């Protein structure tokens, strides 16, 4: 296929003729959508930028954007920089609030573009390799194969080529959204946010395309709760063998390495390992592949020197990878049009010639855009380089570390550079005396950004020193991760739909995001385990899913070994890489459609309203670095799923905060009686930031409360909420009165105590909507709520 993925697509775009291979395979027409006769098309197929604006404005009224800028200035055009502080406006007339909203849209578009580019690249390659008519078969238990595509576009993809339409749609919409960020375009912060929400929705579509395409083509687990447990951690890599390290998010090149190893029988001779989402995905294809860890381990993995060949694909790849690789004499293969690294293009060259050039140092790396060629070149180069690189695969010695530490001038610039305020300088001072414990502690907490090293005027190799100090945990970094299972089965949805919607399963908590945590990733495990013991459902994706595997209990078991992998109370489900966030959203959509039988097809508002009011799901994004994570969370917000960020979430400038002290903000309709009534702040926020794990736990319990909970469900949710609040914050939650609708909601074992609390607050019972909605019942045609 060579350089031609995008070229081929350009030729055949949404046309009805596609020619494949040497023989002729002709495919006429893309989506035979007219076959979907059972369900009527809903009101918003392929919504344009303004089609869901009314829904967004409903959300934005309840959850007005809260802005925390990261700079007083705007520098987006040549008239600037403009100082927007103290109520000033920029030369274009924009104020600081609108400017933040504009950046929010930009950020959302950046993230969505990354995912859409990923989806396109993957899809076109897979169409070319497996054929346009390759079936979308996600296994026996999945009929609703693409809930988000059905919901947004109103189509049912059956074959790979049917996934083109969603990507076409996302790409077109993105142009309109980006255009609104140009100077002189949109004026209202709310409209900017509505557009950002639109971008978020598109993002989830792109993710769904990418994951479905790879699952059905690359033989990844199909919604399997018992997907294999795979080796995880830096310590699992056998460095005596040639090592190929894959970094990024697009699994194609890594898959080609796995395929080549299989084909040549070299599986046991070469180690293939990965960092970040490519690692998660390669483990879904080849359970023998080693998952080193999240983005936080990227710099450590590269600097450790273990990799003979480093393959980078796309997203989350450090910009200095080439520079670092050269220091340890590894070669780099860039494989994607998004990251070419200035390398010579060897896509169409003879692989052996390229290997020769790489091994002999003629070129430091190569750009190879055809994934099928990457596998051969990477494996052959690794086999040749491994011996000559042996000296680079070792950690520095303890004595060397101490000598290096002695050079530290104690300027403290490392501490000042560290985003997590880690005490590197204090560690160095102790290391001079031979005490490495402090540095070892820092290794555990470090997010691997490398800023300390950049700032050190003595040029100390701080990361390598931290690796040595943390050697024990470094070598012990051997864990078990349940590899990504992909979507949730329809049958699982049927089983849990009712208890979730009635509140008897107290909530679904989804962990997503990047690994720049404020403290150790262990906190993530503590949060998850607290809820697992309470029989919430835990879902995890991307780097979070990997961080959850990075701690063992006293018996040496990781959370994935202790709890089952099914989507049920007390289960922990690793969906897979970042693209599988679409299945977390998809599960919520499927509950509305499969369990509650809400018409799904192009019926976005009704389904989102259902999720907002009935499905106690919340996302915890404890670290957030990539714009993609912002786009994902914004997409979940539009669907009515609230998000809790760790401290770094505040740096993306915008939250959607509710005001529980203003009862008028929580008015709700009862569709059954068409009556408008005072509701409750459930969920209180659509996105918020907390500082500590204690706050996150209590907030998660609170954000799982929904207006639709039955009295039994509410009792269960409140008993956890009260208990967790007492346990972690030290008191009964002060807003408890807002969530008790009648005495029936009060947990029996603490009824007296709660009644006392309520009477001190002057609490009175209130009406409970039987069919809660924030949509105006007068405008809701019954056919949107029940299949005809």
């Amino acid at each position: 296929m060579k350089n031609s993925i995008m070229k081929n697509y350009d030729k055949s775009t949404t046309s009805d003729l596609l020619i494949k291979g040497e023989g002729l395979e002709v495919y006429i027409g893309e989506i035979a959508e007219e076959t979907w006769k059972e369900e009527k098309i809903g009101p918003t197929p392929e919504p344009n930028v303004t089609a869901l604006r009314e829904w967004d404005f409903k959300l934005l009224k309840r959850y007005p954007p809260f802005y925390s800028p990261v700079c007083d200035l705007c520098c987006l055009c040549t008239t600037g920089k403009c100082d927007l502080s103290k109520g000033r406006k920029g030369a274009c007339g924009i104020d600081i609030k609108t400017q933040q909203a504009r950046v929010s849209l930009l950020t959302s578009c950046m993230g969505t573009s990354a995912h859409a580019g990923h989806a396109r690249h993957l899809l076109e390659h897979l169409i070319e390799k497996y054929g346009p008519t390759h079936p979308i078969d996600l296994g026996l238990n999945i009929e609703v194969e693409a809930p988000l595509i059905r919901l947004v576009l109103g189509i049912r993809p059956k074959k790979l080529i049917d996934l083109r339409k969603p990507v076409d749609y996302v790409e077109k919409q993105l142009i309109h959204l980006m255009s609104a960020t140009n100077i002189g375009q949109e004026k209202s912060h709310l409209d900017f946010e509505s557009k950002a929400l639109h971008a978020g929705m598109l993002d989830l579509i792109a993710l769904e395309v990418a994951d479905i395409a790879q699952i059905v083509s690359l033989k990844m687990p199909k919604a399997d709760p018992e997907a294999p447990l795979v080796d995880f951690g830096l310590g699992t890599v056998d460095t005596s063998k040639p090592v190929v390290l894959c970094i990024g998010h697009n699994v194609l090149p890594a898959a080609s390495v796995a395929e080549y190893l299989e084909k040549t029988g070299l599986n046991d001779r070469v180690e293939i390992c990965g960092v970040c989402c490519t690692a998660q995905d390669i483990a879904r294809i080849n359970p023998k592949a080693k998952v080193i860890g999240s983005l936080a381990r990227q710099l450590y993995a590269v600097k450790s020197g273990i990799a003979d060949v480093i393959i980078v694909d796309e997203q989350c790849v450090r910009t200095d990878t080439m520079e670092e690789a050269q220091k340890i004499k590894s070669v780099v293969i860039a494989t994607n049009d998004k990251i070419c690294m200035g390398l010579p293009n060897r896509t169409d060259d003879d692989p052996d010639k390229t290997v020769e050039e790489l091994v002999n140092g003629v070129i430091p790396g190569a750009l190879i855009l055809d994934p099928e060629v990457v596998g051969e070149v990477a494996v052959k180069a690794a086999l040749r380089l491994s011996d000559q690189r042996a000296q680079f695969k070792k950690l520095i010695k303890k004595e060397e570390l101490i000598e290096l530490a002695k050079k530290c001038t104690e300027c403290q610039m490392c501490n000042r550079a560290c985003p997590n305020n880690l005490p590197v300088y204090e560690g160095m001072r102790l290391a001079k005396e031979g005490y490495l414990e402090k540095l070892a502690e820092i290794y555990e907490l470090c997010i691997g950004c490398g800023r300390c090293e950049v700032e050190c005027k003595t040029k100390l190799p701080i990361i390598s020193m931290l690796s040595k100090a943390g050697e024990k945990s470094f070598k012990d970094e051997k864990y078990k991760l349940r590899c990504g299972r992909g979507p949730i089965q329809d049958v699982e949805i049927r089983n849990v739909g009712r208890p979730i919607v009635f509140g008897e399963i107290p909530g679904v908590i989804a962990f997503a995001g990047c690994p720049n945590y404020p403290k150790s990733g262990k906190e993530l495990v503590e949060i998850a385990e607290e809820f697992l013991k309470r029989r919430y459902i835990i879902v995890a994706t991307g780097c979070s899913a990997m961080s959850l595997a990075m701690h063992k209990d006293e018996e040496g078991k990781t959370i994935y070994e202790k709890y089952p992998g099914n989507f049920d109370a007390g289960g922990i489900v690793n969906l897979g890489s970042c693209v599988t966030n679409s299945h977390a959203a998809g599960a919520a959509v499927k509950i509305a459609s499969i369990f509650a039988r809400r018409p799904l097809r192009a019926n976005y508002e009704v389904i989102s309203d259902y999720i907002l009011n009935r499905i106690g799901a919340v996302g915890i994004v404890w670290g957030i670095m990539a714009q993609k994570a912002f786009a994902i969370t914004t997409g979940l917000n539009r669907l009515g799923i609230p998000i809790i960020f760790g401290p770094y979430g505040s740096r993306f400038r915008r939250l959607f905060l509710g005001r529980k002290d203003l009862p008028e903000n929580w008015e709700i309709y009862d569709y059954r009686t068409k009556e408008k009534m005072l509701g409750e702040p459930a969920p209180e926020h659509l996105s918020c930031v907390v500082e500590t794990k204690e706050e996150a736990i209590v907030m998660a319990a609170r954000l799982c409360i929904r207006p639709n909970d039955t009295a039994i469900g509410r009792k269960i949710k409140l008993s956890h909420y009260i208990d967790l609040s007492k346990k972690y914050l030290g008191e009964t939650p002060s807003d408890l009165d807002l969530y008790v609708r009648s005495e029936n909601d009060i947990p029996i074992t603490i009824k007296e105590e709660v009644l006392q609390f309520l009477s001190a607050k002057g609490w009175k019972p209130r009406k409970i909507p039987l069919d809660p909605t924030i949509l105006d019942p007068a405008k809701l045609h019954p056919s949107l709520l029940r299949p005809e």
Partner: protein
Amino acid sequence: MEDRVVPWQIGNIAYSTHAKVLYPPEMARVINRAKRPLIVVGSGLTEKLELNLFDYVIELSKTRNLPVVASGNTYKEFIARNFKPVAILGILELINLIKDQNWRGFDGKGQYDVLILLGIFPLLANQALFAAKHFASIITISIDQHYEPNATFSFSNSTVEEWKENLNELCANLKK
């Protein structure tokens, strides 16, 4: 533009409006003049238990009967010391209330006019103060160890010993 103190975290530069550094007696004057001051504290207090910052905050609060919002994970420690904060609330949620001029405060008596911050995770304090600076009309005072550019007033960067002295001097200068 006033002389600028370099923020402790080296990336935190390039603001047009930045905190004025005050010495403890001047800072005390601002707080003494305030009609409705409020203190908010965060997880830094629990992380540095050896510095006895909880006891310090209780003492600070008692000088002028200043209400304390317990953010992060601090509430429990206050209760263990027989001190009751006025609320448990996340810092950004607090700023969200403070930026609304119609908010009546935790006691229903009206909006606050001075907010004193201590021990919030630095990156988050920075963002909270950015929001307050642009969207609230409150005076913000950072009494952390390091200069906080987005507050209205801040201590300058100091060693732990200097900082403790600053804290004590601030307390000593507050009206009883």
